[in-house]
């Protein structure tokens, strides 16, 4: 939803502006493979970040977001969002170097982001737009899927930022002291925060999210109903026009998720509307 969404203020919503959870939102997404090639035809994409570098990248994403929007220092609400996310995590299965940490950004804009190694941030505006816990679980599951599938790291590598680390490869284990490392991490985090994922990544995150939800006992239809509401709010079939032109349109995403759920024949799953309403009442006031 970071891309799931992406952002759209309520004002923008009212004015028919862009939106975010549209899942797919945002320009770009295409990879300049040429940028992956460095010296002697070495494909830097084959290199990868160390677990510690991934952690630093994920934390830097969270730092950038919380410097862009205020964090909502609300223990009960953050606890609630975290617990829903951690219940979804019970359906994720074994992962490496991922530890989910959740936060709520105090902005009416509708959005959610995933940083490498599991930093999940969702906006107050997105929460206010939801109707039950299965919708929250659905959005969190989509973002968690981005983290589990390492889409942010992939984006970092595709942008050629590994080259900024290549020269300090030997020093990375103890690294961080040099400006190149700092600039690469900051640029990578900015990329993950600002640039939409590819169509493929968004579709993969949707498909994985449905699996997470079913495994954890939540109704996978929550993701579907939320996307439909976004579509209605948007009033546009393709998810916001040019801004989301490179991503699967909402209709396509909704159709794909609906088809996946239909094929699965899953049990209804939990919706938990009552406790969602009571736990989020404060932000709706």
């Amino acid at each position, binding site marked *: 939803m970071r891309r799931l969404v992406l952002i759209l203020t309520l004002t923008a919503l009212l004015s028919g502006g862009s939106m975010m959870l549209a899942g797919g939102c945002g320009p770009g997404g295409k990879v300049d493979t040429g940028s992956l090639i460095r010296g002697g035809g070495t494909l830097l994409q084959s290199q990868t970040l160390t677990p510690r570098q991934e952690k630093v990248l994920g934390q830097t994403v969270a730092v950038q977001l919380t410097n862009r929007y205020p964090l909502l220092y609300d223990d009960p609400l953050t606890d609630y969002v975290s617990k829903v996310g*951690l219940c979804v995590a019970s359906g994720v299965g074994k992962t490496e170097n991922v530890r989910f940490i959740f936060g709520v950004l*105090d902005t009416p804009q509708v959005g959610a982001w995933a940083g490498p190694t599991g*930093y999940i941030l969702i906006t107050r505006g997105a929460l206010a737009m939801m109707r039950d816990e299965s919708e929250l679980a659905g959005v969190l599951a989509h973002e968690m899927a981005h983290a589990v599938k390492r889409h942010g790291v992939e984006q970092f590598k595709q942008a050629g930022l590994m080259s900024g680390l290549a020269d300090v490869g030997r020093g990375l284990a103890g690294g961080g002291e040099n400006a190149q490392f700092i600039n690469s991490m900051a640029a990578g985090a900015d990329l993950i925060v600002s640039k939409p994922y590819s169509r493929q990544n968004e579709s993969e995150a949707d498909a994985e999210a449905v699996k997470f939800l*079913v495994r954890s006992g939540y109704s996978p239809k929550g993701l579907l109903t939320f996307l439909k509401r976004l579509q209605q709010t948007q009033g546009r079939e393709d998810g916001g026009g040019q801004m989301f032109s490179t991503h699967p349109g909402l209709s396509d995403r909704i159709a794909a998720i609906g088809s996946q759920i239909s094929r699965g024949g899953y049990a209804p799953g939990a919706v938990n509307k009552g406790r969602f309403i*009571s736990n989020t009442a404060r932000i709706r006031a």
Partner: protein
Amino acid sequence: MRSFRRWWVPAALALICAGSWALAETLFVQSDATPVRTAADPASETLAELTKGTQVEVVAREGEWVKVKAGDREGYVYGESLGAAAPPAAGAALGGLGSVLKGSEPSDLSASAAASGLQADTEKVASAKKMDTSAVRWMERNRAAIRSEEIAAFAAAGQVGPYRVNAPTKTKPAPKAKPVDGNKGGAR
């Protein structure tokens, strides 16, 4: 009369001060590690971090921000982080879900907090780019303080998570049907 003139000014000042004190608005910090900033801007420098329950005196309000005085320091706190009433004490029931607020077991809290936190390199990146890390540190502490028993109670109350282990994942028979995931949803 001269004696009266000599004393009426300080006496009046004392009365004014007392009146001001009586009218001063007091708020309570609602969560731990609430940052006090130099300006009404989330990107501004953090002067200090206040613990949950700290009383602050309102100096002024600027939009969604409140200029407060805590002890001998003044700074800005985001309004949502303050409340007219003191926050519930650690261990109080949360939302009727049977879970408890984090922090009721200091040893457990400190142990889990020690296992998390920002990487030194993250601090270096943030410092070089002039970004504040207090919000993410708060997130880290918040997450570290959520105990597994709380999550289990929450999952049980909502019939999700590990408590779905033995629940059927299919509503209709399917010959090749394996649970979609092959994962029985065990606790992680």
